[in-house]
């Protein structure tokens, strides 16, 4: 080996010339696959899910347990579609397109399954803070009351055991999203998991110990992914209790977290010039939509006045 020991070190005064533009290794080529959705032929890259394929041609498929930044668990089954030749319906969120597949997204069978899934959920959980689920119910003409007034529910007392989170499992549809966000898909803390089995299954810490005794690190990523408001920031919960929560008066602004140097995008939700909630965009490459306790909750220091009280007596100008 030659020994360029004597070569001069770079002179700090002189800027270093540019090298070639660095590139990521090219992704493996994905071949195109021809499929048919609702009679329309389309071509999608190999590995595309049926949900993505349907969305690519503006077919709106309902989802509850699916989120772009989580691994599909396909448990809610509200996204099922009819695949020609398949004995059962298939979940659009996780089923990958295969050559020649023919899909119906709005057949009788599909509509019936979606309707029943929504009826099952709405007859067993409190959907009052789940607007998406409620809009699907309208769309699929769901009538949960047809199971009778004594249908079993998951109603239970709200859990408030810390200053940051509220857990109202009476609103939980067991979509597993919070478990995924607490677990391998993001935070890897695994403070919560699904415990028990069947209808009695629920999201739980070990032996149902309160959060402050658990492994929870209050990243709030579970709340960030909850589709029904079963998990809620205490700040939002308190405002809702006080009747002052009003999303029509809120704005959202993306900025960067003031703490460490990772550079997480924070979406600051403000109402009446008070920060009421902090989230992160799902498609953000630094965070993938996930934050830590400081980014999620550490904003109180700019909030000198008391949290927002009841709405002002006057009607906001844009509320008409």
């Amino acid at each position, binding site marked *: *080996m*030659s*020994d*360029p*020991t004597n*070569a*001069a*070190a*770079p002179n*700090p*005064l*002189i*800027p*270093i*010339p*540019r*090298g*070639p*533009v*660095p*590139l*990521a*290794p090219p992704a493996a080529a994905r071949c195109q696959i021809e499929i048919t959705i609702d009679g329309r032929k389309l071509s999608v890259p190999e590995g595309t899910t049926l949900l993505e394929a349907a969305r690519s041609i503006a077919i709106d498929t309902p989802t509850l347990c699916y989120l772009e930044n989580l691994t599909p668990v396909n448990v809610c089954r509200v996204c099922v579609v009819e695949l020609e030749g398949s004995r059962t319906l298939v979940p659009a969120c996780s089923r990958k397109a295969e050559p020649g597949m023919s899909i119906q997204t709005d057949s009788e069978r599909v509509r019936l399954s979606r309707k029943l899934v929504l009826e099952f959920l709405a007859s067993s959980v409190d959907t009052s803070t789940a607007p998406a689920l409620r809009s699907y119910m309208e769309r699929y003409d769901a009538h949960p009351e047809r199971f009778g007034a004594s249908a079993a529910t998951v109603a239970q007392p709200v859990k408030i055991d810390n*200053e940051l989170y509220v857990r109202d499992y009476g609103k939980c549809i067991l979509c597993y999203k919070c478990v995924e966000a607490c677990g*391998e898909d993001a935070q890897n803390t695994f403070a919560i998991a699904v415990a028990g089995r069947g209808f009695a299954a629920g999201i739980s810490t070990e032996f149902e110990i309160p*959060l*402050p005794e658990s492994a929870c*690190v*209050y*990243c709030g990523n579970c709340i960030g992914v909850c589709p029904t408001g079963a998990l809620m920031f205490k700040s939002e919960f308190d405002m809702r209790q006080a009747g002052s929560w009003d999303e029509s008066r809120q*704005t959202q*602004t*993306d*900025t*960067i977290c*003031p*703490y*460490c*140097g*990772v*550079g997480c*995008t*924070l979406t*600051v939700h403000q109402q009446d010039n*008070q920060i009421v909630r902090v989230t992160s965009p799902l498609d953000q*490459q*630094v*965070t*993938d939509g996930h*934050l*830590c*306790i*400081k*980014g999620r*909750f*550490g904003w*109180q*220091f*700019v909030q*000198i006045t008391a949290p927002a009280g009841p709405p002002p007596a006057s009607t906001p100008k844009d509320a008409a």
Partner: protein
Amino acid sequence: MGGGTSSYREIEETDLIILWGSNARDTHPIFFHHVLKGVHNGAKLYVVDPRRTASAQWADTWLGLDVGSDISLANAMAREIIVSGLANRQFIEHSTSGFGGYRACVEAYTLERAERETGVPAAVIRETAHSYATAKHAQICWTLGITEHHNAVDNVLALLNLALLTGHVGRYASGLNPLRGQNNVQGGGDMGAIPDRLPGFQHVENDELRAKFEKAWGVKIPPKRGMNLSAMFDAMERGDLTALYVLGENPADSEADRHRALKLLNGLDFLLVQDLFLTKTAELADVVLPAAAGWCESEGTVTNSERRVQRVRRAIDPPPGVRDDTEILYDLARRLGSDWGTPVSENIWNEVRSLSPMHGGMSYQRLEELDGIQWPCYDESHPGEMYLHSRLWAEPLVGPRAPFSVVEFEPPVDSLDEQFPLRLTTGRRLDSYNTGVQTGRYSSPLRRSESLDLSPEDGARYGVVEGERVRIRSRRGSVVAPVHYDTSLRPGLAFMTMHFPDEVATNDLTIDAVDPKSGTSEFKATAIRIEKHQEN
């Protein structure tokens, strides 16, 4: 240019990650998400840290070295890599300089010597060296465990040497990444808040570059480097520095050897503090200018640890009477006789772009569209650089060779002896930040007050129990804090934070032994003893 060489996404796709002096799990939690994605994708994780931290608990191998023995470990790894024939000869030959001297230096660092100096078993060092050298792609990431030492720059160079030895730099998924402790430490440096640099890391002593700025600004720029923070304190001590303008820093709490810092700040002729809060430092000030919160009450950019320039935006209005930093600076300029007009963040940014080639292509519009851009980004057709130093792999080599540096192990300045037998090291907790000015204002269920964390073995040895308040004495001062048992510590090693200076001024203990090259104090290594404490 100084910055992490790789992108976070490369951490997810690498084969081996060494976290060296970094507890990213607690201090850079979202970066650690990327590490964990890498781990779940199969990457091996090595953590070098005196404590078996939360990060270390995820590691395939934890190397629990003695505080400040990093160079011995790195040099021994290098020697092992060389003698095992695992050095990347082609890369060394093509792209580096100074290998001969380096090889001669590390020759003395046998595994046995390193085991003696670091405490880490030789077999573990050997295995780590082999894994790092033979990994297809590998990343070394570090934080303050490397840099808060009297020989911080040498520590960093020791790690750089390993990457040069193995070719683990300048390629996709291989690199060297300092994780920045503050949201705009990187950006501050980028903008020239370094004693010898102008924006874009352009050297102030390069006449041609300086002339460019002088022309744009219509003023003469002193053709010599300025002072870093530690040098400023020395200058205050000498009486050379008598007025200080502090923006968003709290040195009265955060400086090592706090007694000295307080004394010097008190002795200034004039102290101006611009901050969100009336901090300890602000309390000493002659004038305090209340400033808006940069991250949510003003517009601008910051740069993160992967060199990504990102937009910050005004989400809420600052309280009445509180003004944006740029407004204050513009007003000061006006009072000093130079009218810069009205501050508009995009205009300021465009001025940066016009003077700093590495920011040239980063228009606000592109920053918006691309979710931030990694520097360097020379023009509006440039994508920004995912990783740095691709030039080292270019055929032929572009630019100068990357130099190996000869660095030798030196133990921490504050040595242990019979009087001060315990090694105190400092760090952060997950839910708190620095001196707690910001994080002290939200209610965290995780928060517990300051404590002296000790191994249970030391608790027994010194006859102190969990929760007992003890006096902790160093050669510079003493504080009182309760004992907390922590099994992540071995006997002889103690831990404290600096999150609660009002309760326990940890920096009364620390030493201001400063790295002459970076100006950083050796916060990580203090010699202490424990004394029984009688409450009055």
